């Protein structure tokens, strides 16, 4: 893993949690959406916080797809779970919510889990080569880190 790839993982975390926080902030000003009032979804789409949140979540999706292009799903998902911690911090300092001790224990579990997975390889070798698929030109499986370091 190179620095640039760690930055991609970091951007997944930041764009996802900031996007969710903007959506939560925006939805406070919108009436409750239930099965009988689905039209309120369109009212929510006019809220500036919701619009900014959607843009952040689009950036999250782009970063998430980039991360999955060079790392395993079982690496990306636990590694990006640190976004739950960022969301807790945003909910304390920006949304002024109360965080119970039970949630702090949950945060500790996530931080340890992220530490455990981040210490291992991002891509395991036991996976089908891209040249078996129609969407990429034939050729050997690229050595991701070797390309990065050799450039």
């Amino acid at each position: 893993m190179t620095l640039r790839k760690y930055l991609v993982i970091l951007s997944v975390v930041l764009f996802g949690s900031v996007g969710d926080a903007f959506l939560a902030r925006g939805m406070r000003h919108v009436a409750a959406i239930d099965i009988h009032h689905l039209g309120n979804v369109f009212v929510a789409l006019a809220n500036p916080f919701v619009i900014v949140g959607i843009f952040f979540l689009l950036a999250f999706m782009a970063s998430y797809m980039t991360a999955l292009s060079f790392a395993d799903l079982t690496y990306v998902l636990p590694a990006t779970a640190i976004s739950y911690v960022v969301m807790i911090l945003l909910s304390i300092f920006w949304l002024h919510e109360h965080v119970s001790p039970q949630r702090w224990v949950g945060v500790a579990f996530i931080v340890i889990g992220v530490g455990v997975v981040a210490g291992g390889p991002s891509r395991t070798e036991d996976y089908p080569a891209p040249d078996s698929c129609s969407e990429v030109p034939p050729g050997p499986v690229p050595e991701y880190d070797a390309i990065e370091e050799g450039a």
Partner: protein
Amino acid sequence: MKTFYTWLCIFITVFAAAAGDVLVALAMRRIGDLVDLRRRHGFLTVVLRVLSSAVLFGGIFFMAVAFFSNLVGLSWADLSLVGPASAALTFVANALGAKFFLHENVDRRRWLATMLVCCGVLLLTRS
């Protein structure tokens, strides 16, 4: 009967979310490293490769199914049941999907990390 429908919704959410993540991961693996691809062929090539992937759109479709199934579940049951159950089970389903469909080498380290994150999410969303 309402409990049955709630758990049906939770299982549809978990299945669809895991299927979505596995398909998006499969699509990105087939396309190749985007960072390297952009450096060698340019940004436009990356966009065209991504937009021409049917598997990717299949994954996004399942993600949308998971989102709406979660919404329906929330309209029937409390967030304190639907939230933790969906989030924690999705982590486990993703690990199983990655092992059996993507053939990732999910070793003890990754199972441990998945379980720790799963417990953490459970604690965060239950309180």
